[in-house]
């Protein structure tokens, strides 16, 4: 029987350990945190967050060496690709994961929540995002999506004794699995039609049709809608505000930044590598989603009285901006290139400024125990540093120079204009109008901070813990430096090219 077995031809896959090193480091860190947690008592609980943070930074080392090496590494027949695009995004996920660890350290330790397990789940989620950045295969994409989502569902419910947190977790979970199911159905249809799970093999088969077949349209729409939930595009955004408000604030920051970015990464992979030829399907869909998302997100954000909810809706609106270039991506290779760059740049900048804003909210909430906009009244009089930082992030979110946001917005406009057709211009106008609307609520918060009185006259200064200070310094520095010298960022993003693989 054994001899019989040996006769089966089986080729061991070639595994490039260097290319997988960042993922391996993160997975190993997860195991180390797990073991430390199993063997130590109450006194050493701080170790978990330190090890998790260090592990995420160490994982940047192989990312850097791979980037220095520069070669595109393709594994598993094209199912897993490590190129400049993947590396930039992996660095983004690792860094934002690190900032979230910094934000969490005090919050989790002081709230008496489960500590070791928190960081284990966070690491698992980051690992899923990193896999997503390289996944070029329907199965890998799905597995990566689940790995990044499932820990996030549970993290959202981490404040177990708080009903709001439970609600956040359950809502996020139900919406998330529903979206996964829709997406999986779309994937199965696409696989059934093309007979392959590899995006690079799907592309020619669905691209060669003159007009799309109903089944292909259905499959693409379902898959993209599944990720529409992930990036909280309207009308699939209903979970976001409640989840963001109820979840522990560091988790909210994580969801709003890293998890959303991972959704966009998946959309980019799918559209650029897999569905490239079917722009007659995804362009109108993305156009509608983008326009709806930014408009409705901004309009609802206007009415919020809670900063976290406001940031949630502003995040939805920002997602609309990021979706916009995808609506013209298929018109020409140049436009596609512009769109890809503008999206990646926007994701990087968005991560920095949004994480920073959440860091300020957390620092303030340590004193006020609330995230209502009123509690920010007169912040400048007793916490000038935080106020300046928050203003920087708000300027950036609104797109005012010198904060980095302007560069991201310009990229979006350039991409939309590069298509040179009406739909691109109209969408550019929609983006512009929305940017103006967004000024209103960013400005309102700013006014409250700088001009209003302190609500209860309590002007004792805020003691900001070191870890949050570190997070603030990192995000503020990134926001400012990119805003002033955008070349720092474009140096990394310029070599990015996804289309070459699909062709």
């Amino acid at each position: 029987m054994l001899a019989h077995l040996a006769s089966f031809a089986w080729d061991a896959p070639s595994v490039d350990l260097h290319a997988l090193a960042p993922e391996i480091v993160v997975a190993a860190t997860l195991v180390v945190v797990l073991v430390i947690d199993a063997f130590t008592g109450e006194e050493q609980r701080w170790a978990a967050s330190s090890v998790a943070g260090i592990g995420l930074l160490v994982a940047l080392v192989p990312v850097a060496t791979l980037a220095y090496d520069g070669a595109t590494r393709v594994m598993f027949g094209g199912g897993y690709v490590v190129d400049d695009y993947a590396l930039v995004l992996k660095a983004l996920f690792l860094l934002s994961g690190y900032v979230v660890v910094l934000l969490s350290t005090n919050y989790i330790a002081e709230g008496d929540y489960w500590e070791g397990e928190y960081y284990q789940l966070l690491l698992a989620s980051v690992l899923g995002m990193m896999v997503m950045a390289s996944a070029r295969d329907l199965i890998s994409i799905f597995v990566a999506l689940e790995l990044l989502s499932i820990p996030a569902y549970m993290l959202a419910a981490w404040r177990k004794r708080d009903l709001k947190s439970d609600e956040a977790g359950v809502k996020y979970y139900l919406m998330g699995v529903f979206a996964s199911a829709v997406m999986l159905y779309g994937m199965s249809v696409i696989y059934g039609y093309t007979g392959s799970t590899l995006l690079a093999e799907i592309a020619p088969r669905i691209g060669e049709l003159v007009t799309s077949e109903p089944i292909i349209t259905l499959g693409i729409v379902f898959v993209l809608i599944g990720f529409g939930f992930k990036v909280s595009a309207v009308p699939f955004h209903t979970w976001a505000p409640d989840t963001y408000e109820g979840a522990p604030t560091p988790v909210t920051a994580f969801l709003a930044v890293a998890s959303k970015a991972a959704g966009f990464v998946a959309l980019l992979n799918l559209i650029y590598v897999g569905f490239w030829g079917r722009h007659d399907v995804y362009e109108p869909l993305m156009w509608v989603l983008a326009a709806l998302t930014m408009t409705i997100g901004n309009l609802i954000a206007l009415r919020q009285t809670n900063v976290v909810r406001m940031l949630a809706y502003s995040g939805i609106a920002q997602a609309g901006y990021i979706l916009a270039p995808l609506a013209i991506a298929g018109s020409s290779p140049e436009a596609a290139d512009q769109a890809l760059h503008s999206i990646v740049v926007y994701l990087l900048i968005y991560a920095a400024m949004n994480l920073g804003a959440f860091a300020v909210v957390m620092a303030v909430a340590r004193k006020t125990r609330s995230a209502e906009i009123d509690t920010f009244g007169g912040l400048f009089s007793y916490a000038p540093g935080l106020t300046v930082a928050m203003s920087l992030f708000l300027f950036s979110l609104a797109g005012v120079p010198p904060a980095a946001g302007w560069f991201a917005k310009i990229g979006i406009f350039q991409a939309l204009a590069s298509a040179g057709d009406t739909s691109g211009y109209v969408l550019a106008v929609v983006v512009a109008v929305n940017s103006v609307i967004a000024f209103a609520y960013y400005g309102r918060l700013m006014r409250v901070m700088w001009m209003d009185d302190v609500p209860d006259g309590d002007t004792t200064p805020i003691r900001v813990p070191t870890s949050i200070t570190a997070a603030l310094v990192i995000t503020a520095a990134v926001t400012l430096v990119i805003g002033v010298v955008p070349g720092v960022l474009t140096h990394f993003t310029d070599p990015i090219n996804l289309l070459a693989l699909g062709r």
Partner: protein
Amino acid sequence: MLGGDPLLSGDIDLAVVLIVLLKVVVVFALLLVATMFMIWWERKIIGDLQNRIGPNTAGPFGLFQTFADGVKFFFKEDLLPDRAQRRVFILAPLLTVVPAFLLFCIVPFGGDFANGANGTVELFGHETYLQLADPPVGILFALAMSSVAVYGVMLAGWSSGSKYPLLGSVRASAQMVSYEAALGLSVCAVVLTTGTLSTHGMVVHQAGDGWGSFIPNWNLLAAGIVPFVVFLIASQAELNRPPFDLVEAEQELVGGYHTEYSSIRFALFFVAEFMNSVTMGAIIVTLFLGGPAGPAPWGPGWLWGVGWFLLKLLVFLFVFVWIRGTLPRVRYDQLMDLGWKVLIPISLGWLLVLATFHVARDQHWNGVVVALVGAAIGLTFFGLLRFAIATSKARRLEGVVD
């Protein structure tokens, strides 16, 4: 498509259909008779172990006792509790019996495996195996059926509309789900050794000569003794037999999940339990003791196969009763500790050891070095596991977690 049985590989004519039907009838009858015998056997042996006489009135040695009991059950009043969920209540006993029958389909109960023969038997001009079905995924089918068997127990307890049955069924399902992992992992070790999932293939693999060409090549030895022991323990838990019969712990739960059942429905549970014991014994024989494989000195080889199979089965049926008569019932936390902290790590570890040796043999590594390194790694992980368990215990005592 229907498996490796040569009967179905050619054209399918009436004779083939009749042969299949015949096999169905024979397997069904064999299992029923074996079950009746098992009930008598269990009562008799337990009687002997406890210095009692046991059933001795109905027929020679009380052999017809089970039959008499069956008739009695049949004529008793069929009670349907007021608060029961009627349809599910009626369905539950059937859900227990059907998997028990299906499980036996894949057991090879005879055939000539001596001297390199592959167990085929000539029947009305057609070659076939002495087993009802030989699907290529045979042993997985067995695992699937034993996991489906949970439904009967679970639904019986729930549909009775009474608290003791509910508690019993919750215990039972937790227990069966927990021990399935250990069961599956020890089956994995066997699959790794034999390289096939088909039960017939496993028997063929074990029919050859093992070490020193006189010890049989049974998986009991070839896969190491560990999977066998784990499987034996886990199978007792899976069957809800003592010492793992917390499901029907009389002191705590009256009768467990079937407290509210009476008459023929109770009889179905009762029969299913013993039927499962027989089937599980047959599966252990197939997995670890070569099934019907054995020498055939004279006469028709297939009859020897049946004989060897029955003999091996009888040994296990005795062992089952012996275990029952000897060991006291474990406590619930001990049960879970044994399942999760002992059996699963051991079987998982052993699976890795086996895999390591297979790789080492394929790559021609030095066996001694592999053994030493493997032992070192194994000891390290054993130590880590002990340490982790000790830490969690210490924390529990500190009251940090409960």
